[in-house]
């Protein structure tokens, strides 16, 4: 793909500029990265063909193009909120890694072949491990990266094992062929083991309970832009490929998670993961005092909600899942952007560091309010519609018996709980006065204008997508229709 070349050139280019001041190098690097991303996006949106290359290793259809465009957009925003970060001198490497991870994700979403999926998964993961460790001065960053890496490595091992079991059973690596081969096959223990093991790998990527343990540590320890990227772009790509593997590759063995009508398969497994994720994510978030950790748990909870989209295994489910994840990623990115600003000022991202933020930075505080309320699912914002659509689709899968209602009710109850900790953040921002002893360093950081603009754009996007969901959804549905899912 042309994308790779463009991005590789970028990385090389950056190495030349070693001697410029950090600030300019950041700006320059970001500019080139954005340019590359936009070029790729432009190219993507202009090709209009469907192709299956190399036995399904690369698939080009409207849906994957849509997802790729979204990924590139998220990358651009990640780059924008990284500008003027002060955690590293290796700017070229930093942006190159982000772009490499993006490339990995793009391969990930456009592949329908399990080996290719695994390889791109690894490409993405490895880039992200390094990104998490990028703050070399901070020991937490290193610790977080190590945990992330170890956990990821373990999960990857399980996945590979699972995939090899599947290969052994079906004799194919293409998802469609696997599904065809598994059609007549009963649910024997080896298939089950393969299934569960495969799920583990993806569960790790999407941070679903109980494969979430890395997330809070990694989010907290990693540099904030890296965490934002892990929480946004990586999530979107992983969810999409997870859904694809499950729905295409294991089409015959989904089982059922309907109330009183459970049947073994991957659907009940995911239902269990979803329920646990929602419960643990939301409850544990209440106890957090660090906003990044809080966002990590909230991400776990949102992974739980989003799993509902896969559980329904329908095209409606896919569209609701993608809509939900894209809006979630935008919101999370914005929230992390605000956190980054606060962190740079206060040195940490504890809840108490947000006290009085509403007075100091009314604009950013307002954006934060929009992000938090959207995450909580308050009506005019994108988060509300995403949740609504997701839940509506989930309820609608079994119209006669409302089989998934139990999960939806559970999800709604849990999102009520979630409001509590989001409001905690807002309370800190707006209600709690500035502590007198707080370090007065306001004039030192006037705040990066580009970052602010990016955050503002994200907030605007959240509001607009909430008010007019059809802007995104219409295209999404058309893309899904075009992809024939």
């Amino acid at each position, binding site marked *: 793909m042309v994308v790779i070349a463009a991005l590789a050139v970028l990385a090389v280019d950056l190495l030349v500029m070693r001697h410029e001041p950090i600030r300019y190098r950041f700006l320059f690097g970001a500019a080139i990265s954005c340019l590359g991303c936009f070029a790729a996006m432009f190219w993507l949106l202009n090709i209009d063909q469907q192709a299956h290359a190399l036995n399904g290793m690369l698939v080009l259809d409207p849906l994957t193009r849509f997802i790729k465009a979204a990924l590139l957009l998220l990358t651009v925003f990640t780059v924008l909120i990284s500008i003027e970060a002060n955690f590293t001198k290796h700017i070229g490497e930093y942006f190159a890694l982000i772009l490499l991870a993006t490339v990995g994700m793009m391969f990930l979403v456009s592949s329908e072949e399990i080996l290719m999926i695994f390889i791109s998964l690894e490409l993405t993961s490895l880039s992200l491990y390094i990104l998490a460790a990028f703050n070399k001065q901070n020991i937490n960053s290193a610790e977080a990266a190590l945990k992330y890496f170890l*956990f990821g490595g373990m999960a990857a091992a399980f996945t590979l094992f699972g995939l090899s079991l599947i290969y052994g059973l079906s004799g194919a690596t293409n998802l469609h062929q696997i599904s065809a081969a598994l059609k007549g096959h009963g649910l024997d223990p080896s298939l089950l083991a393969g299934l*569960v*093991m495969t799920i*583990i790998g993806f569960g790790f990527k999407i941070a679903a309970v109980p*494969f979430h343990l*890395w997330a809070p540590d990694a989010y907290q320890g990693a540099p904030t832009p890296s965490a934002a990227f892990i929480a946004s772009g990586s999530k979107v790509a992983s969810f999409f490929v997870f859904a694809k593997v499950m729905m295409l590759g294991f089409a015959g063995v989904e089982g059922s998670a309907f109330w009183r009508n459970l049947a073994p398969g991957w659907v009940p*497994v995911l239902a269990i993961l979803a329920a646990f994720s929602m419960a643990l994510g939301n409850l544990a978030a209440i106890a957090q005092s660090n906003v990044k950790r809080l966002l990590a748990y909230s991400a776990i909870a949102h992974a739980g909600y989003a799993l509902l989209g896969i559980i329904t295994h329908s095209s409606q489910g896919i569209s609701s899942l993608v809509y939900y994840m894209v809006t979630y990623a935008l919101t999370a990115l914005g929230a992390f952007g605000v956190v980054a600003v606060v962190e740079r000022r206060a040195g940490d991202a504890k809840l108490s560091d947000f006290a009085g933020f509403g007075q100091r930075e009314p604009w950013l505080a307002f954006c934060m309010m929009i992000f938090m309320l959207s995450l909580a699912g308050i009506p005019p914002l994108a988060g509300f519609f995403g949740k609504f659509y997701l839940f509506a689709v989930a309820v609608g899968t079994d119209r006669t018996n409302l089989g998934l209602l139990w999960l939806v009710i559970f999800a709604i109850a849990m999102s009520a709980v979630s409001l509590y900790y989001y409001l905690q953040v807002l309370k800190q921002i707006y209600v709690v006065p500035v502590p007198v002893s707080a370090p007065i360093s306001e004039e030192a950081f006037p705040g990066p204008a580009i970052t602010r603009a990016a955050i503002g754009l994200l907030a605007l996007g959240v509001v607009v997508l909430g008010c007019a969901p059809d802007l995104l959804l219409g295209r999404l549905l058309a893309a899904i229709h075009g992809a024939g899912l």
Partner: protein
Amino acid sequence: MSSTVNNLWLIPAFPLLAAAVLAVTKQRHRRFSAFLAIAAMAIAFLISGAAFLSTLGDTGEEGIWREVKNFPWFQIGKSTVQLGWILDPLTASMLVMVTFVGLLIFIYSIGYMAHDSNSTRFFGFLSLFAAAMLGLVISNSLLLLFICWELVGLASYLLIGFWYHKPSAAAAAKKAFITTRIGDMGLLLGMLWLYSEAGTLLFYDNGNGCLEASALTKLVAQTTVFGMAVSTGISLLIFCGAMGKSGQVPLHVWLPDAMEGPTPVSALIHAATMVAAGVFLIARMYPLMALQPEASVSASQVVHAPALSISEKERASRALAIVQPVVHDSKPLLKSAPPVPEGESQVEGKAAASQHGATSTSTALQVITWIGTITAVFAACIAVAQTDIKRILAYSTVSQLGFMMIGLGVGGVAVGMFHLMTHAFFKALLFLGAGSVIHGCGGEQDIRRMGGLTQYMPTTFLTYAAGMMALSGVPVLAGFWSKDDILHAASVWSVSRWPFYLCLFAALLTAFYMTRQVCYVFLGRYRSSDALSANSSSHGHHLPHESPSVMTIPLMILAFCAVLLGLIGTPVWPWFEGYLSGHHPSLSLGNLFESGTIQIMLISTAVVFIGIGLAWRLYGSRAVAGSEDPDILERARPEVFSVLRNKFYVDELYEATVIRFNAWAGWVCDWFDRWVWTGAVRLLSYLVLGFSWLNRLFDEYVINLGFDQGCQQVKNGGQMMSSLQKGQVQLYLRVIGMALTALLLVLTWGIGQ
């Protein structure tokens, strides 16, 4: 459809626009406001004139020239509420009268209100009033008429209470509004009833209107309580509204009190227009009013009915020429009688007419006649003993309105409307003259403190005398012809001859009290000097003075009309009746000698001169000595006189009955409210309080504690879950393995069995 009727709405629109502009104009723009109001009125007058001319055109076979324009207003369910306006001779003549008299009154107001600091507001209200009145006149829908009717009421409320800082004016305004509202209640009920029966409130709608044959057939065919036809019930209810507006007994009490308003207002509202609205309403609804069920007079009987007097047939036919559709079982609709002038050649027409004649004395019309008769005599009696120059005129107005009602009841639309027209002119003249007198005397209204004004205000005197003679019915002047018309109709009324006699008596009284008033005001010597000297500091002038020409010129124009207007409706050449009923009268002296016309004329002339002579003997031949002297009649019969002076104690009667009852009812309600309902509410509130106390306890100790506990549990759960995260990677990795095992176990054994 001609453009005239399409643009008819412009007539009320201009004054309305002027009112709207004046409502936001600052009070100091005096000249501008007067100019605007008068210009709007003048334009309205011109358009009215054009409309009037267009109705003079050839009427063709249909009889009455009539054009309507209807349009839907809004829709409720399946039924569309339509409004519309109409142009027919009735409307056209009213339009011309209202705009012309209104215009003169507007001009007069410039002089009269010259010293008032709120004249902008005044002209704004006047314009609003004129707009509402004109809207009322042109409306072709009872609903639109009712809307304008209420607007007229509102404007009159504002105008009567114009000097709202005077408590009496404020009270009078309230009284006028509330009293007329009582009548309006009836009108509203009648309207609703009519709507539910006929399904439309449009008067004329190409055969579908409520005053057209099909609806009338339906209305008269049904009976309701007391065996009345539905049409009768509706008519009586609508007449209630007319009673209120036109000051008929017993709802007349507001009209004399309304004299608290500025005099031009009195002239406009109480002479020319508003009080005429009731009469106009009856005239407009005449086809409905005249309906009588078949049961009493069957068609065959009527055709061979014993001969009524010829003149009655003629009257009836004239009346019912306006009422085109009259209902019979076998003949669905008898078109209007052919032109019914004189001569024996049209026996058939008269037979048909007599048929209508029988129906014309419907129950509703009888009620109207009797109420009108009572009002005429009653108010004339009171007027004899009043001393306030405007109150005398007010009671005179009430009395004359009674005459109009009689005219409608016994003679039909033309008779009543003719008196309405002439009365509008001479009563406006009298009010404006009285205003001129009051203006000249520095605000004095008591006729006992006037006198000898002839020398001070000659123009006013002359015009006033013309008005007085016209009202009294001195021959050849306007009032003579119109009153004679009524008397003639009453004399041949088939039901009873009492209205005729009472009318004669009222006419006598009219002549008497008008002469008395003129004697008091203009003859003798000026009696107010002592009073004036005492008040000279507050009044700028010691002696009365003539009013400015802006006031006297309208007086002169009105006087001219008052003298000559009657000529359009003399028996010799009954043009006005012909115009209203849609045929062409010819000039014929023969009418004069036919059917007792000349006798009636002679009788009424005699009566008038007796009245004038009597009053002259009592008041004119010797000058009234002092302002404090009792009236001559008072000396003769003090008890009778005091009853009259106190207006038959009607106000006191109402005070003692209706208002007392009202106050008592209010007191009872208050008591109930204070003790019974409040008690109940208190009890309820204590119950609620007790309940809420329990609720609070429950809330605090059960729900809140429970919730707190729950929240605490949730929080603890969170703590516990986050404490799972000890930060040890070994544990993390172990969890993966455990999860794998657990999930596999669940899949193999947990589910599926």
